[in-house]
């Protein structure tokens, strides 16, 4: 109990909420690193997954990408990026982007390839051209699973950004890494709580966004999308 009281006092201490090592700054760094990686990753991964899924080609490739992505330790990837390119946010974002890509490729591939062929036939019969069919018929149906892929990526990136503190990155992971190095378990524990809260908040925010983006007519599909999403945890 004394320990938890100490953690409470850590949070109550005003000096932990200001300056370059304050919670708002660290939170900002964490969110910025993660956001950059997820956005860059999405720009690369979604067109690939959507195209492969639409044409139903190279399915094995799209699935293997996530199997290989799972097998490569995220921690090692960060250290390699650091060894190759040195200090700074650039190498960290590069490594995080590499981690963000596989879940988005796999899930958007599965999302598009699972669109009911009868629906595609009906669209063709109604005179839809290829691109219109993709944009107006297939993508809306695929949104739940595509969003589930983005959510999976985002949570993994937030988790791995924590480890980036080890290779001199900023973010909330600093409290864990520094707290451990200084035997300051109060700081370590407070940092861990902040990281866990950020990961859960990311999950909730993206679930909410998913609900906004899914057309009303296919909400039911959205409910099962989280369950069908390819499980992915590397950090």
């Amino acid at each position, binding site marked *: 109990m004394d320990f938890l009281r100490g953690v409470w006092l850590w949070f109550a201490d005003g000096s932990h909420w200001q300056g370059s090592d304050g919670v708002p700054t660290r939170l900002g760094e964490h969110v910025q690193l993660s956001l950059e990686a997820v956005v860059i990753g999405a720009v690369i991964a979604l067109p690939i997954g959507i195209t492969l899924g639409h044409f139903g080609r190279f399915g094995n490739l799209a699935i293997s990408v996530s199997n290989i992505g799972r097998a490569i*330790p995220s921690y090692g990837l960060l250290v390699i990026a650091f060894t*190759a390119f*040195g200090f700074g946010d650039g190498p960290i974002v590069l490594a995080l982007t590499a981690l963000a890509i596989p879940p988005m490729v796999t899930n958007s591939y599965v999302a598009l390839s699972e669109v009911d062929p009868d629906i595609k036939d009906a669209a063709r019969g109604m005179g839809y051209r290829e691109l219109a069919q993709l944009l107006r018929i297939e993508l809306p149906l695929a949104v739940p699973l595509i969003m589930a892929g983005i959510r999976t990526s985002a949570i993994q990136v937030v988790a791995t950004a924590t480890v980036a503190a080890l290779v001199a990155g900023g973010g909330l992971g600093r409290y864990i890494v520094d707290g*451990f190095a200084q035997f300051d*378990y109060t700081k370590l524990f407070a940092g861990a709580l902040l990281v866990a809260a950020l990961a859960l908040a990311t999950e909730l925010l993206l679930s909410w966004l998913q609900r906004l983006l899914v057309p009303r007519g296919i909400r039911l599909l959205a409910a099962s999308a989280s369950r069908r999403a390819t499980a992915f945890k*590397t950090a």
Partner: protein
Amino acid sequence: MPSGLFLDGEPWVDWSWVSTHIPTILGYLGQHVEFTAISLAGGIIVSVPLGVAAHRRPGLRLPLLGAFGTFYTIPSLAFFALMIPYTGISDLTALIPLTLYNVLILLRNVIVGLDEVPADVLDAADGMGYRPFARLVRIELPLALPAMLAGLRVATVSTIGIITIAAVIALGGLGELIYEGFIESFRTPLVVGMALCVALALVADVSLAGVKRLVVPWARSG
């Protein structure tokens, strides 16, 4: 210090270092395998009964998947750190979070596997006089095995990758080699640690695919 773009001529692997550090490397590898095996065994022990319960009582699904889903969302480094005040720097600090992660993956697959057993098969089993427990053990769980093994493969490969992070707070495993490579700016341990990790994941994945072929020869796909 970082050596810049790998262009400085330092070899990827310094074999003389490897040859003098074989016992250390094997020690970390052994620890890595041990963590993986224990957390998977723990995951199976917890998830099978819970999965059976959730299959029987659909009302349990949301709370169970919600609770373990929450654990799963917590980043591993944070989860390990949250354990330290209670378990210190011990194996349990790594094993408890890893086991909880595995429970979610396995639990989902146990439920899916049991749900997918055809109703006709259950009728036939009832007609043949199976009691509920015998029906569960001898009919339902074997038929759910392919889905469970698929979950086990995902859980195994994920776990092997996540354990490397345990080394950030000195809990052991192949991540210690990655850490050493980072701290000493020496490429060899980093490359050896990464390579062994990926190799271990591939070997485990292929072996589990083989196990599946042996124990469920009727399910060829997937």
